[in-house]
């Protein structure tokens, strides 16, 4: 008896929400076609792919296509690079963007505020190819601003920056921040603008300092936005901005150890060795490790604040 009422209730609920499901249908179909059907292509990674035999006609190869990844340090390097860069991005993006948003929020002159906001946002609108040439303008070994103007005026010997892997982790992070921070700060700023002014007025009455207001009013109010943005980035922690890692270092071979991420590695693999199976093997590796990571990140969030978890 109990179960039938339960079922009935369920069916009723179902009928009530049916229009909503129906509305979601186009998007669901799109996701199915775009994201789920291509997953079938993963099978290439386990095949000895021949162009003339097609995907299903090719022979099975087991895990043989994965061997090359683990034969050298490549698998470890690209995993490490992708992860560490993304972690650095998540932390620094958040901290610096929030700091900028608070600063912007304190500016009284409307015109100045608009001006700074635009200036900060501008790099985000540039193509990575253009960014790469801006960087090149500074770092070109022959004509670059750093070698030709700064170092030579100090009487120092110019360096071939594109052959110095040790500086690139910082450079990549710096370029990334330069590009992205303006955009993120705008998102945080919109949250800041929405905070009820009466909190600040009350704080003023109580004689709170500027720092105390930030610490006890602004930051707690930003928390949901921060968590959502962080979670979104964590979900994409195994992807990398292709332009940033491929174009900006100008695909310089010497820098591969510090600039190769899984995306650029797969791209290079397919372009150079033209071996489809091995490239997909690297792609499958990326998806698998990424999947595990997202599960892990979600588990951590579940522990910290349950209502913000993805699932």
């Amino acid at each position: 008896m109990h179960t039938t009422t339960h079922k009935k209730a369920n069916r009723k609920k179902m009928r009530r929400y049916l229009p909503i499901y129906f509305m979601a249908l186009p998007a669901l179909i799109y996701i199915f076609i775009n994201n789920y059907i291509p997953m079938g292509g993963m099978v290439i990674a386990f095949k000895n792919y021949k162009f003339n035999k097609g995907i299903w006609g090719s022979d099975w190869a087991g895990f043989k296509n994965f061997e090359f990844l683990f034969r050298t340090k490549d698998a470890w390097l690209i995993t490490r690079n992708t992860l560490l860069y993304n972690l650095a991005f998540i932390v620094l993006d958040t901290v610096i963007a929030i700091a900028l948003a608070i600063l912007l929020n304190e500016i009284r002159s409307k015109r100045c505020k608009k001006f700074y906001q635009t200036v900060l946002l501008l790099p985000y609108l540039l193509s990575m190819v253009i960014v790469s040439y801006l960087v090149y303008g500074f770092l070109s070994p022959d004509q670059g601003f750093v070698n030709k103007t700064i170092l030579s005026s100090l009487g120092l010997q110019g360096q071939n920056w594109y052959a110095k892997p040790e500086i690139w982790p910082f450079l990549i992070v710096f370029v990334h921040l330069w590009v992205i921070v303006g955009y993120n700060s705008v998102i945080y700023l919109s949250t800041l603008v929405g905070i009820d002014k009466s909190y600040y007025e009350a704080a003023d009455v109580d004689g709170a300092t500027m720092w105390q207001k930030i610490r006890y009013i602004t930051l707690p109010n930003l928390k949901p936005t921060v968590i959502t943005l962080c979670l979104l980035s964590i979900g994409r922690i195994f992807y990398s901005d292709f332009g940033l890692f491929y174009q900006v270092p100008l695909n310089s071979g010497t820098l591969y150890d510090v600039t190769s991420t899984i995306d650029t590695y797969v791209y290079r693999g397919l372009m150079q060795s033209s071996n489809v199976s091995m490239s997909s093997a690297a792609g499958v590796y990326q998806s698998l490790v990424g999947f595990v990571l997202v599960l892990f990140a979600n588990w951590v969030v579940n522990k910290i604040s349950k209502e913000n978890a993805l699932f």
Partner: protein
Amino acid sequence: MKMRKLTVWTMAACVTASTLAAAGFAQSGKAEEETAHLELYAMSFGGNNDSLEKVNQAVNDYIKPLIHADVKLNIVNYGSYAQQVNLMMSGSEPVDLMLSTGPLTSNLAGQGALTELDELLENYGGDIVEVMGEDVLASCRYGGEVYAVPTNRDLARSVCYYYRDDINQELGLGLENAKTLEDIEKCFEIMHEKDPDMAGIAGNNTQSLMGAWNWDAISNNYGVLLNLGEELKVENLYESEDYIKMVKLMHEWYQKGYIFQEITTSTVSNPDLFATGKMLGFFANGNPTSDNSQSQMLGGPIKHIELVEPYMSSTTVQTACWTIPHNSENPEKAMELLNLMYTDPVLVNLLCYGIEGENYVVKDAENGIIGYPDGQNSQTKTYDNTIGWTWGNMLIGYTWEGDDPDVHAQMIEFNNSAKRSKALGFTFDPTNVQNETTACANVAAKYTIGIESGALDPDEALPKFQEELKSAGIDQIIEEKQRQLDEWAAANAE
């Protein structure tokens, strides 16, 4: 409600009818013409190619009555050619005739991307076999089947240093008397003193500065025959004395500023680099026509110094060859067109030099010598005539002004007299060491450009490079190569 249903059905019927009608049209159109369409892909090295469409039209006008097919000439820049090809093969776009280069061919053949040509050659390409000879075609066998037809050109190669003679004379460098790398170094010293901005060696990061030197690369440089293949002993190139000596010299030159400083990051091609006027020369392969063809390409008088004597190996034969990809819809027609490209001088001249009167004029009808029309030169030309060596059999076409009238005969003589690697005719099948080869290629991509262009200090980088190659499995590749080579040699001795 009923009304609406009716409307829907009417609309559906209309759509279906129009689709059917369109299909019907397409079919009737096809029946009338019966012309097969071919897609052809070849490469260029940059430069203006505005006349391509016109030349394409002329080619079609000429071949349509002969083989009942028309062709679309797709010319892709050399730097992105391999990438483009990989994308085309993966995307299954129809490609009927495709120019290919050594390692690319073996890679594609190994993955079943190419059509086996033996039967097609027999039925539609008999003339090609006659022109090229069975023994040269044998160099393009992969696992027993012919997958590619080499173009008839310099099947052997020397390695030369090419330089702008006008700059040489202007600065009084004395390169005309230089014979060895040491001599060249002395000239560079003078050059650097007189014009510190001038680079003695140009290049970019799409290709190693040295390319092949005095070794038979056996398709991929991981395991080579040293000394131009004097012995059938596969060795590790990157640990050989020749290689180490060479990269040390390059590093020295790079540090002294003799080599283009941006070489590891630049992707600019030679013609564009030389347009800056700050480049003196570069290393490249040579043959009897190279001075002239390089002058054409770079827009200035080019001379050469031969550094490695002419030699022929499977790799040099495979440098440029034509293939018919597996997704060709008309392999027979493709082979017919290819056959024409090896035997029909009219077609060859069209492809190599463009349209008479527009892209070239006959200067000496008796000897078949042609040159630019008035008002055109290598800078203002509108058809890329520097890639003649890729168009099948250029040796039956005209001779360009400035080349010896008998240059085609010289070329054949050059091929016949070149030193032959002992492994000529052997092709390596990488299937068993695919993982090792890919791993080595990834390692090499990291180091070769930097080390061979002199930008990296070999004392630091080379040991790392060698070690990573070892862990990537270069020794297994060498072993496998030696095994296949021994088998091949034994089979050949019988």
